[in-house]
Every structure is written in structure tokens, then in C-alpha cells.
């Protein structure tokens, strides 16, 4: 249904004309008083925004006018006002996102310029951040390489996914397909409560209990290992994965499962060959959400890691935990200034781009699966 209307509206010029027509219809159908109210709301809100950007104390005037006009409009022309206000909220969400993106990119520029390097006679800004692996913000040569942090984030994410994905998907399968209804009703809210535990709690347990224990058991000098940060972050991502994957699995139509059972398969065969493939897009979205949480996890990593940006030796050595992109920012924002601060913004840009790619990837998988299987999940 949705895809049909999508296809209808993808015509280029006709689309624009239709929108103009709709706008004209809207203006024709609306009373002048309502139009005036809408105009006042729009103009005063724009004024408030300009005042906000200029950090003017007078911002309160257009903002007050906006509130008054909205209040009046709500009482007298509710439908039109609601239309404008909902449109405003949508636009402002996008706008705030845009401002944030512009801000972190602008703030990261100086360090990108500082870390320029010349390859084959061409100066590439920021390239040295990814070619060398040494970070030193204080003693010369001062270098802000992102390689150790990217490595750290990758290690933590891979370990966390290895923990969260199999555990989460199998738990979801059990809850959705095998468990009796009473167990499901009890366990599912429990899992969702787990998702609400603040990450510092996990980090604190990791710092005081897990890390010293790991350092004793593995005879590591000092505490802080990617392995245990990954495990803790994986456990933190687990509730998200279970919850989303369970939703996906239980939304597979009963008719598909019954059909499969009717041709003589066992419950297990139905699960592996019908339910899981049909819900694959939802399950993979669940895992990707978990991965997103692992990449963005800050507190637990900051508390448990060592805070010295450096590659481990060899690279796959998970028994030493140095620094991730997020913990770098969390640990240094208070002391950093100048280029070091800009380097933290550069870490933020890398995180932003990574999460963007992952979420686009998730959407793409979902779209592919929906086209292929036509399932509802």
C-alpha cells in the first residue's frame, strides 16, 4: 500500500506542480483570519530563531508573540494552527540536526588542517590522522591520530556484538516461539527494565569487580581490557537486541508457521526455515541497533579503559584496553583546549559518520528484505 503511493509521487515536475496546487487550494479554503494567524505564528517564530542565533535578549519578544499567536490560533482556528505547529516541529527537528552536524564539522576543521599530509605531491587534509598511530597532545611531536581510538571502538564493538547477537537472537527466539505465555509475559518486561539500567552502573561494577579480577586471572599488568569492556557493553546492548528481535519474530504471520507445520515439519524446522528467514530484516535491525549502542557506549568504556591512546600489540590483543572514540571525548573534554579540543570534535565526526553509515545500512537491509519477502516485519 505504502509502496504504491510512493511510486505515484516520485514524478519530478508533476510532483512540484501538485504541491503548488495543494498549497493554493489550502490558501483558497482557509479564512483570512486563520491565514493571518498562521502568518503571525510563522513570522514571530522566524524572528525568535534569528534572535536566538544573534544571542539577543530581545528574543523573548517574538517568542512571546509566537506563544500568544499559537494560543489564540489554538482556540479559534485549531485545525490550521495544528497544521502549522506540527509542520514546525518537523522542520525544527531537521534544522537542529543540521545545525549540530555543521557545528561538529566546523569545530573539527582546525585539527583536520593541522593533520594534513602530502601524498604524491597532493596535500590531503586530515589524512595523517589515519596513517600514523601515535597520539600525543602534550609533548612534541604533537599528533592527534584517530587510529588507536578507531581500533579500540572496533575491538569493543566486535566483542560486544559477539556477545549480544547470539545471546539476544536466541533469547528472542525462545521468548517468541518456545516459551509458554506466562513466562513470556514475565520475562519480556524484565528484559525491558534491564535496558533502563544506567551505563555507569555497569561501568562501576566493571571497574571495581571485573577489571581487577581479569587483571589477576590473565596476569595483565594493571587493569582495563577490551575483552571485558566488550562483554559489559554487549550485556548492555542485550536487552535492546532481545526486545526488538522478539517483536520481529512474533510479527511473522501465524498462517506461515501453520502452513509449514501442516506439511509435516517439526517446530524447530519451522523456526529455522520459516520464522527466522521471514523475520530476518527485523532481527538484523535488532542486531544493528545493538551494534549502534556498542559504538556509542561511553560511560562504561571511559571508566574501565586505560585512557592512553595506543594500539595494542598484536592488534587483536583484547587483553589490553586503551581508548575508544567515545571515551576519548568523555575523558578529555574538561582539560582539553585548542587543537586537542578540536581533535575531540574530530572523534565526534568519525562517530557521527559511522553511526550514519550503520543506520543507512540497516534501512537498506530492511528495504531489501521487504522487497524480497514482503513480510510485515
Amino acid at each position, binding site marked *: *500500500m505504502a509502496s504504491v503511493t510512493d511510486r505515484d509521487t516520485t514524478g519530478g515536475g508533476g510532483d512540484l506542480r501538485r504541491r503548488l496546487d495543494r498549497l493554493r487550494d489550502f490558501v483558497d479554503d482557509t479564512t483570512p483570519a486563520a491565514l493571518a494567524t498562521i502568518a503571525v505564528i510563522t513570522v514571530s517564530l522566524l524572528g525568535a530563531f534569528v534572535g536566538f542565533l544573534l544571542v539577543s*535578549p530581545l528574543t*523573548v519578544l517574538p*517568542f512571546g508573540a509566537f*506563544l500568544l499567536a*499559537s494560543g489564540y490560533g489554538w482556540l479559534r482556528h485549531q485545525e490550521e494552527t*495544528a497544521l502549522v*505547529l*506540527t509542520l514546525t*516541529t518537523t522542520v525544527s527537528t531537521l534544522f537542529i540536526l543540521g545545525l549540530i552536524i555543521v557545528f561538529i564539522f566546523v569545530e573539527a576543521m582546525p585539527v583536520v588542517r593541522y593533520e594534513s599530509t602530502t601524498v604524491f605531491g597532493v596535500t590531503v587534509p586530515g589524512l595523517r590522522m589515519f596513517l600514523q598511530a601515535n597520539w*600525543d*597532545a*602534550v*609533548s*612534541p611531536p604533537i599528533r592527534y591520530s584517530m587510529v588507536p581510538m578507531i581500533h579500540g571502538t572496533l575491538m569493543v564493538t566486535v566483542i560486544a556484538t559477539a556477545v549480544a547477537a547470539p545471546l539476544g537472537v536466541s533469547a528472542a527466539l525462545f521468548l517468541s516461539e518456545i516459551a509458554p505465555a506466562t513466562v513470556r509475559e514475565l520475562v519480556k518486561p524484565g528484559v525491558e527494565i534491564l535496558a533502563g539500567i544506567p551505563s555507569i552502573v555497569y561501568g562501576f561494577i566493571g*571497574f*571495581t569487580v571485573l577489571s*581487577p579480577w581479569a*587483571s589477576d586471572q590473565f596476569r595483565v*599488568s*594493571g*587493569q*582495563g581490557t577490551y575483552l571485558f569492556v566488550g562483554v559489559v557493553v554487549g550485556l548492555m546492548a542485550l536487552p535492546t537486541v532481545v526486545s526488538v528481535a522478539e517483536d520481529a519474530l512474533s510479527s511473522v504471520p501465524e498462517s506461515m508457521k501453520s502452513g509449514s507445520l501442516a506439511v509435516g515439519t517439526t517446530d524447530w524446522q519451522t523456526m529455522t526455515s520459516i520464522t527466522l528467514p521471514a523475520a530476518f530484516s527485523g532481527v538484523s535491525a535488532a542486531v544493528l541497533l545493538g551494534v549502534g549502542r556498542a559504538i556509542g557506549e561511553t560511560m562504561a568504556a571511559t571508566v574501565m579503559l*586505560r*585512557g*592512553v591512546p595506543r594500539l595494542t600489540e598484536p592488534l587483536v590483543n583484547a587483553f589490553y584496553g586503551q581508548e575508544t572514540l567515545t571515551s576519548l571525548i568523555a*575523558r*578529555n573534554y*574538561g*582539560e*582539553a*583546549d*585548542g587543537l*586537542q579540543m578540536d581533535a575531540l570534535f574530530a572523534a565526534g565526526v568519525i562517530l557521527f559518520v559511522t553511526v550514519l553509515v550503520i543506520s543507512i545500512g540497516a534501512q537498506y537491509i530492511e528495504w531489501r528484505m521487504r522487497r524480497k519477502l514482503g513480510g510485515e516485519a
Partner: protein
Amino acid sequence: MTHDSERLSDRVSRRKFLMTSGAVGAAGLAGCGGSSDGGSDGSSGDGSSDGGSSGGSSGDGSSDGSQAQQGDTETASGSGSNTSLLTAEGSSTVYPISNKGSSYWNSNAPPSDGEYWGSNSESTVPGWDEIQTDMLLADYFASQFGFEPTEQRSAPPFSTTVGLSHSGTGCQAVVDGLVDIGNSSGPITAELDWSEDKATSTVIDNVVGRDGQPVVVSQDVWDAGVEQLTGEQVRAIFQGDVENWNELDGVDYDQEIYAIGRAEGSGTDTSFRLNMLGSADAPMGGVDTRQGQNQQVAQLVSQNEGAIAYMALAFTSDSVIPIGIDFEGTLYEPDKDAENTIFDSAYPLNRDLHMYTLIEEDNPDGGGYDRREAAFLNMFLTSFGQQVFVEANNYIPLPTSDLEEMKGKLDAVKP
């Protein structure tokens, strides 16, 4: 399609709720912004109507001769009787001193208290001999700078509050006028990368105490007989030339060294590099972990083997043990009764603890203090303040000559 439009209207009603609550929140924020504007106007005392009216009303109510005199000497209204909240912010190292002082100040204990102020049959506060007053704590110090005593406990002539952040943040906050006092464990020249001239013309450097930065080791290292190291050995450990305790001369303990440092560029880190490693940008390749707070360092030392760290004296304990350091033939011991101790000013890892105040035009004589700042800082420079706020927090009290010099600056602000 009808189904879709139904859902749309459903969403609109949900959005309506979200939007309304958002608008209410924004209105609340706007209100907060407005009131905080007024507050900062008042505290910086730039002669705006806000500051004037609040200062004026409280001043009029309790007006007497001395208040009127102040009115004569000062054109800007309300800075003499400005009783707005005194704010301080900054380094976690200076925080124990500053915050304890603030707590004592706000409680405004009567002289009969004995534990916090004054004297009774059971106890007497340190340094009471020099004070001997029948006024309450904050009343006593504030009245020296022209404030009216309240004669009420828990109601000082003006209140104080201390925020906890970082040295650099504290310096920046006082320069920007966000707070009255900026606490810093490093000199402002290093924290904000200023020249000496700019620093002396912008802020007043009030040193309230010294911090010895002892080198500490974990229990197992102490038990293995490491009770002192030379400066050279500490340098070798933190620069990565030595990886195992048994590589050091005279140490027979096979355990990898776990060297703990502080956040890159923090006040503690900078002064350690400067005083121990030779320059503020000396490399520290041997550091295995860096932590932002003294508490975290102490925790790491106590729960790991082979650990060595440097940190503020106030956080040492039975399992975080300070060791002696031998600098070019002089052994500084962690023992108060030794000939040379890590509490001496001569110990190279000692550093001054600063409470910066901004030089402002509207301060009395265009100087570095308004009267609230001067009254509060003066408390720390008495023998009482040094013993209760500095020494009791394991910091090093200032020698008499430094105290006298600082008090001389404050006396200029007295009415």
C-alpha cells in the same frame, strides 16, 4: 487510504501533546534564562538596575553609620553592601580547601560552638588565640570588610558556594565573570597559556596553600621494600625506560610496573611533567593508564599490583602509600618529623594552590577584589584557616611571610 488518514489524525493528537509540553518546557527555560541574567548582573555589580535594587533594599533595611559612609565613598550602588551569592569553581585539588571553607562560612557557627568556631569547655578551634571574638564565624570575617553581622547561625552576611570542575575551567570561568573565584591547581599562565604580564593585569593570584604531589605505590610494592626512589628512577619509570620493578637498582621484586598518570594536560599532569620530568611538554611514554580524578587514581593503586602513581596528598591511605624521593642528594621523606619532608616548600613536586579573582573596574580602587571576595579569602589566610582548611586536608600551610604579603593586598580593600 481512509485507514491512513485516520492514523494521521491520531498522530496529530499525540504530537499536539508533545508539542504543548515542549512549548511549556521552552517557556520554563526562557524564564530561567531571564532570572539568571538578572542574577549575574547583580553579582558582577555593573551598576545595572537589578544589582542596584537588590543591594539597595537589603542595605537600606539595616542601614547605619558605616553603611552610609560606604555609600559616600562609592558611586556604584550596591557593591559595598552587595550580599549576593559568592561563587567559586575549579580544580578538584583546591576543592577540599575551598568547599570546607565555604561550608564553615555558610553555617556561621557561634563562638560557643567549640568544634567549628570559638571555644568552650570541651574544645577550642585551632588558631583561636589570634581571633578571640564574641562574633559568629562569618560575621567576624565579613565585618572586617564592612558587612553587617547577622548574628544568626546558618545565616552568614552573604552565602558562598563552590563548584567542582577542572583547573582550566575554573580559570576560564573567573576570567569570563561566570564565578567570583577560580580555583586552580596550576598557574593561570599555564592553564590558559597566558603571558606573565597578562596574568598580573587580569587576575589576582591568591595562593591559599601548597599541595605536595607525593609519588605513591601500591601495598605490594611497599611490602617488597620500595620505600624511596631517586628522582632519576621515577623519571625512568614514567618515561618508559624501565618496565619491571627488578630493573631498578636495589629492588628485588619481579613485577611489571603499572604506571598511572593523570589526564593529558590537566593541572596535575602539567606540573608533574614540569617538576619531575624537566619540562611541561616532556614525553611520558611509560604511562599505562591515565585517569581524570584523584579518587580514580587512588582506587586503581589500591586494587592493582605493581602500581606507581602521583597525586594530591589528600588521597593517600593505608593501601596508597607515599614514598620518599631523593632529589640530587636530598631525601624528602613522607614523614612530618623528618629533616626534609615532602611537605616542605623545597620539595620539587610541591605546587601552589590558587584562588584567582578578577581585576574589575567596579571593585574598590579598581582592584582585584570586591569586599565579598576579600572577606572570604581573608578567612583562609588566618592561622585558623590555614590549620582547619589547609592542613587538616593534608595540604601544606603557607609560611608566615607569604601569609603577610597576601593579607597586605586584602587590607587595601578594608573600608
